[in-house]
């Protein structure tokens, strides 16, 4: 049975009652988000913190100030495109004058509407929450997107992209599982070109080299600022939970303004002493940690640790790698963009994924990390399997790793706390022994 949804879309999988009940949850989701965001920010502000964080705090509410700003932007004819993964190339959207907004959701409350459709079938909470966010219409920004671009790194996102089409125009990007071959790169390059054609059709504009050149330059400045910030994190002048928030504000912020504020934060960090010199230096990796699902970062840093570095697609990876253009021709620029999103990425959807293990090792050494916490969202089999591999590789190098499996609800808070506390106690005991 099919019905019709908003904008005359055909409801293939959802039905009108389901959507109605999801929409009734809208206020509750927004309220819960606000409460969670304010609660976390209060906890984060309680400690010694750079002043420049105030800007990012102001942008932290997904339904707050920035949402209003984007609403006005859209009303005056601006273009907004939704994305669902690291892989959706920001430079391409920006070249069309569109603001890309990444909608991977960290809201627990938004999981419920999705469960009405999916059942509680051990699926990744990030995917359920994102679907619930759309079904409920709780995100005003998601509601005004012209298009949602969904790369297909994992089964859950692949199917999410399919189901989302009941409520919004979706463009799927077929991500190769093997990235290290000529064929893999060529197939991804085709996807990038396919996206360009889709956007050209949507906006009735032909992409010209100068449009892309300008967008690449804008993001190169953002990437340079982020690398500067990443290097400064090593000195420990900022908590990891703050650093991750900075990264994730880029998911929806005006990128030039974000860049400016990251540089301002860097200026302040240059002369700043470490916030917790005695803390166990932890690298956080694994499944995306998405604001405001700050359970694991907060627990690590409440338990005597500091997240000194991360290996997350929702953290460092967001902006770390620059687009390196060989030839500033259209083809040359597209190749550079395609490679930037494919080659350095260590998403567990790739096989082989030696890059990830090597990246973790290199970063841990570079940042003097004493242990790694590998976060696995329940239902994320790819990360769970990569955790097993990473554990073997890291332990061989005498670097301890803790795999933490968790969901969005707070039900396992104390169990996760026990594991993290024990891990940090273990690291500190080691330090005393060797020091």
């Amino acid at each position: 049975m099919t019905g019709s949804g908003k904008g005359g879309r055909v409801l293939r999988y959802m039905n009108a009652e389901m959507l109605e009940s999801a929409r009734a949850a809208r206020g509750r989701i927004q309220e819960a988000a606000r409460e969670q965001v304010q609660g976390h920010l209060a906890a984060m502000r309680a400690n010694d913190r750079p002043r420049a964080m105030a800007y990012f705090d102001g942008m932290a509410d997904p339904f707050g100030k920035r949402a209003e700003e984007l609403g006005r932007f859209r009303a005056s004819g601006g273009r907004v495109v939704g994305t669902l993964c690291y892989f959706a190339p920001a430079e391409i959207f920006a070249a069309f004058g569109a603001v890309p907004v990444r909608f991977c959701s960290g809201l627990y409350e938004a999981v419920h509407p999705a469960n009405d459709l999916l059942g509680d079938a051990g699926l990744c909470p990030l995917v359920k929450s994102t679907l619930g966010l759309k079904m409920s219409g709780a995100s005003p920004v998601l509601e005004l997107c012209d298009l949602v671009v969904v790369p297909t790194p994992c089964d859950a996102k692949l199917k999410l992209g399919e189901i989302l089409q009941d409520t919004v125009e979706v463009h799927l990007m077929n991500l190769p599982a093997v990235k290290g071959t000529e064929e893999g790169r060529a197939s991804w390059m085709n996807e990038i070109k396919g996206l360009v054609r889709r956007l050209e059709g949507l906006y009735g504009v032909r992409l010209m080299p100068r449009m892309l050149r300008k967008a690449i330059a804008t993001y190169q400045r953002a990437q340079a600022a982020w690398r500067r910030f990443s290097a400064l994190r090593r000195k420990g002048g900022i908590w990891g939970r703050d650093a991750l928030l900075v990264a994730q504000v880029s998911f929806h912020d005006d990128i030039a303004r974000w860049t400016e504020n990251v540089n301002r934060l860097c200026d302040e960090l240059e002369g700043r002493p470490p916030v917790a010199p005695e803390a166990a230096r932890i690298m956080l990796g694994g499944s995306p940690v998405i604001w405001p699902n700050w359970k694991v970062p907060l627990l690590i840093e409440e338990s005597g640790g500091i997240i000194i570095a991360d290996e997350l697609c929702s953290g460092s990876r967001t902006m770390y790698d620059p687009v390196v253009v060989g030839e500033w021709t259209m083809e040359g620029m597209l190749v550079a963009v395609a490679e930037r999103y494919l080659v350095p990425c260590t998403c567990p959807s790739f096989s082989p994924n030696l890059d990830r293990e090597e990246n973790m090792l290199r970063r841990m050494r570079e940042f003097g990390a004493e242990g790694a916490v590998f976060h696995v969202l329940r239902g994320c089999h790819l990360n769970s399997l990569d955790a097993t591999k990473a554990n073997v590789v890291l332990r061989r190098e005498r670097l301890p790793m803790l795999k933490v499996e968790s969901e969005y609800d707070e039900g396992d808070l104390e169990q996760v706390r026990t594991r993290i506390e024990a891990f940090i106690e273990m690291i500190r005991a080691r330090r005393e022994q060797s020091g």
Partner: protein
Amino acid sequence: MITAGIDLGSTYVKGVVLVDGAVKGWGVQPTGPDHDETARAVLGSALQMAGLRLEELGYIVSTGYGRRVTSLAKETISEISANAEGTRFVARALGVRTILDIGGQDTKAIALDERLNIDNFAMNDKCAAGTGRFIEALAGVLGVGIDDMGPLSLKSQSPLRITSTCTVFARSEVVTLIAEGKPKEDIIAGIHEALAKRLATMARKVGVRREVFFDGGPARNIGMRAALEKELGVTLVVPERPQIVTATGAAVLAAARLAKAGGQ
């Protein structure tokens, strides 16, 4: 130097009073709705056994699931560290390199390095599969007292296979076996085997090196011990009072803190 350790577990609260490096008193009580109240009662009986008063305690460290909810302790420590500390205390000379601990809601495997520091650890998922609750729930279905499970299971000639470690599903398996008229001792032996298999898998994840120490309440269960020994192919080291090893570790840690602070 007088210190105490309180282990606020999900099913039992355990307390130990340590006087100059020797355990002088202990107490164990089922966890009540008010953790703090239970902790006070347990500590009270441990103090009574030691012939001491609360005011005489120099330092108290709490551990276990409820470690953060008691106002008695000056400091908290995770049960992993406390268990390792307790093991070092009660079995220092025995060459223990692996600790297996079945708790009420958490089952743990801890690997120690040559200096007896924690090298690695693993814990069960957040559900009751493979924990003390598993045995408790199934004992209830069988109408057998928890202390009789071990001796009964040793009479079994052919343990039955319980395929599920999920407490809820295993329960219905056991109900079916009872309905089929299967001998209780074979069912119980099967329950112990199922749990032993699960714990052994966890232990192999951190690496099983001898000697293997087994503690937590269920370590008192002789049938559980036998099943685990069979599964791992080792003879287990079981302390005299396996239930209070973790609380002892907390008390030892309290003493170390006090000594560091120069207290008496």
